[in-house]
């Protein structure tokens, strides 16, 4: 362990965690390697693709751009913290809408869409497209992802 590392304490998916991190470690790196939560993905590492999206103190962030040390005392939700034991209606909706192809972007999409619906419970389709435009899907599943979100927006879920 390097002498420059420092200990931070934060809440991840509802559990308090204390982790030693170096000044350059990103939130994404810390969550994936130190906390062994690998659901959040790394692609562009420059905040352009959204594969690493997490919710930090209520806001969606590209966790590849956030330094771990900045999250001391914060509350973080990763894909593993969405839905608990079962799946949320949004996650179910992704399945039924056929929104999942390779799946690599999907955790980030689900987290971003969850945050979007928190902020705008009844979004229009263009608000969904705008709100998720920072998340790239190379399989091109955009229209089905947007349909999946719209299907549960404002409690539209057929449950």
């Amino acid at each position: 362990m390097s002498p420059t590392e420092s200990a931070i304490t934060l809440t991840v998916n509802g559990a308090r965690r204390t982790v030693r991190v170096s000044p350059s470690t990103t939130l994404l790196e810390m969550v994936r390697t130190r906390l062994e939560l690998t659901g959040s993905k790394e692609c562009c590492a420059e905040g352009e693709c959204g594969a690493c999206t997490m919710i930090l103190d209520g806001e969606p962030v590209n966790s590849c751009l956030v330094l771990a040390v900045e999250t001391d005392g914060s509350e973080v939700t990763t894909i593993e913290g969405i839905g608990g034991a079962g799946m949320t209606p949004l996650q179910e909706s992704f399945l039924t809408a056929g929104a999942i192809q390779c799946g690599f972007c999907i955790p980030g999409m689900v987290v971003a869409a969850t945050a979007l619906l928190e902020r705008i419970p009844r979004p229009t389709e263009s608000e969904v497209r705008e709100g998720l435009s920072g998340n790239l899907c190379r399989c091109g599943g955009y229209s089905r992802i947007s349909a999946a979100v719209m299907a549960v927006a404002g409690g539209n879920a057929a449950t």
Partner: protein
Amino acid sequence: MTGAGLGLSTPRVGGTDRVTGAQRFAADIAIEDVLHIALVHLDCGHAAIEEIHTSAATGIEGVVRVFTAEDFPNPVPRFGPRFADRPVIATGETKYHGEPLAAVVAVSKEAAADGAAAVRVEYKELPGVYSIDDALDPDSPLVMDPGLRTGDDPLADSNVRQRWDWGWGDVDSTEAELVIDEIYTFPMVTHFSIEPHTFAAAPEGGGVTVWSSIQHPYFLQGTLASLLDLPISKVRVHAPDPGGGFGGKGFPKYEPLVAMIALELGRPVRLVLTLEETFQAVRRTNARLQLRTGFARDGRLVFIDAIEDFMMGAYADIAPRVISKSSYFAAGPYKVESVRAVVRGLMSHTTPSTAFRGFGAPQMTWAIESQMDAAARALTIDPVEIRLLNLAGPGEEIVPGDRPADGDWRQALNIAAERVGWGEPLLPGHGRGISVGLKASATAGASYCILRILHDGSVSLIAGTSDMGQGARTILSQLVSENLGVPMERVTLVMGDTAVVPFDYSTSASRSTVFMGSAVVDACQKAIAELRGKTAVQHKVSVEDVVFTPGQISIDGAVYTLPEVLNDVFGAVPGEIIVTGSQRGEGDANHPLGGPASFYEVSCTASEVWVDFETGDFELVKHITVADVGKAINPQHVEMQDEGAAVMGLGHTLMEHLILDEHGRIVNLGALDYRIPTFKDMPATMESVLVENGDGPGPGGAKGSGEGGLLATSPAIAAALSQATGVVIKDLPLTPERVWEAMHGGDEGHEQ
């Protein structure tokens, strides 16, 4: 063979893990005691390596060792799917921007990256071959060492790696009323899988175990066995489901480097490319296509006279196959009297190009279809009519003596026209375009699987297809469920481990539903035969008296469920039915492509655009794709793939192109500067329509699908733009700048 399971849109098998984050991709797999690799490359395309100073790097805490060419056998081993021309690590010179010349191994990713930054390289930048013109210039340096060519290659003293001459009939004596002579270009684009390429290796059991995000694990296994002089059985490849492949993850790239380092160190090592490094590792073959196309007065296509140049890159990879297989179908889906095509595969000091969804056909389709539109305009024939006139009907040949048309392509075209509202009045600034694309599927190859009916009647299917987003697990499970009458949730697929799973040629060419699907049906039939035989013995009746219907067996009116049958035939000591299934395509050594295509993948695209005349920007009002799929085993999955292909086609049509500077550097390296379609680029309306006539060679009459949606994107949109603006553009992508310049009398792309 029909039944309830085929044609049902059952949800994605593996979908739950993907939506909860539980799915483990290659970089998510924990490997104990693993070391990390960072690559060192130079900031130019072509350079002579003079000296590599590694001491500063090895002095960094955590750095274990720095590997350069000197640490590998001399000469450095080479490999490649067509020619063994790619060295495991750069030796003597680097031939493209990003070619690794050193690999730093460290205990952490950070230390490896710090080490890579500390490696100092003395090098001399050399003149490079960075364009098609450069490659054809006899004064340009040779990219490839002529000594690596085999035999007495008359092209050895040029940058033409391979030349093909396709043709039939006599172009010179074919009379044409109209000749359109144009040049089209198709840019370099990169795959941009959201999962960056990931590799790991560890010594194991006197051999090596490798993890890779690869699409063709068996090809990798063979390459490693040969490079490392190991029996194939001592090379184990774990191939977890790739996070997108699109052809870019087909063939080995840095796995040999990683495997050799692991063996040398006696420890596991891992290399996860940055997105920028994936741009430097894989791309689509760019092309310049010069077509002289002759038409009769009535619009009949009479000849194609073409010079087609494809820039392959620094190493051949699979590009020669991309080029030959696409250019061979010189007229796409059309009948034509005569063809003469000179096709060249060129070496360049650029990223080696490789397979990319559509496998050369989007490039060809861009030129062939744009010519059809040019002829339609010149002859004042409706673009749909001119296509209907020339499309091969079912059973008609598109290349003389080769596999004839295997679908009703006119039906697909008519559907596309109808769905886009062809012929209806257009609002000002709007235009429509329509286009057809053809891609030939696999010509040969084999797929094997093992099917086990366990003693409770559930099924384990062991099959080597890579599920990279196309949903192979779902389709193959549906086939088992359909044929054996076992519920989907009682079928488990085992994939992605060459130590356990039998050989599959590749996951490419939209072949898996046809090849592996047929192997699975074969296995199911064998399992049924075995069940019937064993039941007959048990019941002391003849096999003919044992009737199998999905899920049950009946003898003389008495009905037994599968678990009952298994319990019955094995008695107190449990057992299972184990069978293998296979599907082989042997090819034909005398065929120019090694065999005729097992089916054609044909897709029609119709698009309506609205152009902002002020800015040259335009919006897609409506985008329709029609796929001739034979039979959709899972319609939702096919539509997902088809829509996804269409979106990918929007990328190379509207915005994507890698830009090189005079040093051969990729200028727009990374997600910030290289744009791919986002939610905001979606057409206002997008539809995927499937044509199902059961005329394919796969289960239920299926053909492969999933690539077609991008074949015809560019010409359809360009034609729509032409209709809206009156300008014709022959270079992709159709950026607003390019459109604006064409509209305002720029020197590019103006026809009239």
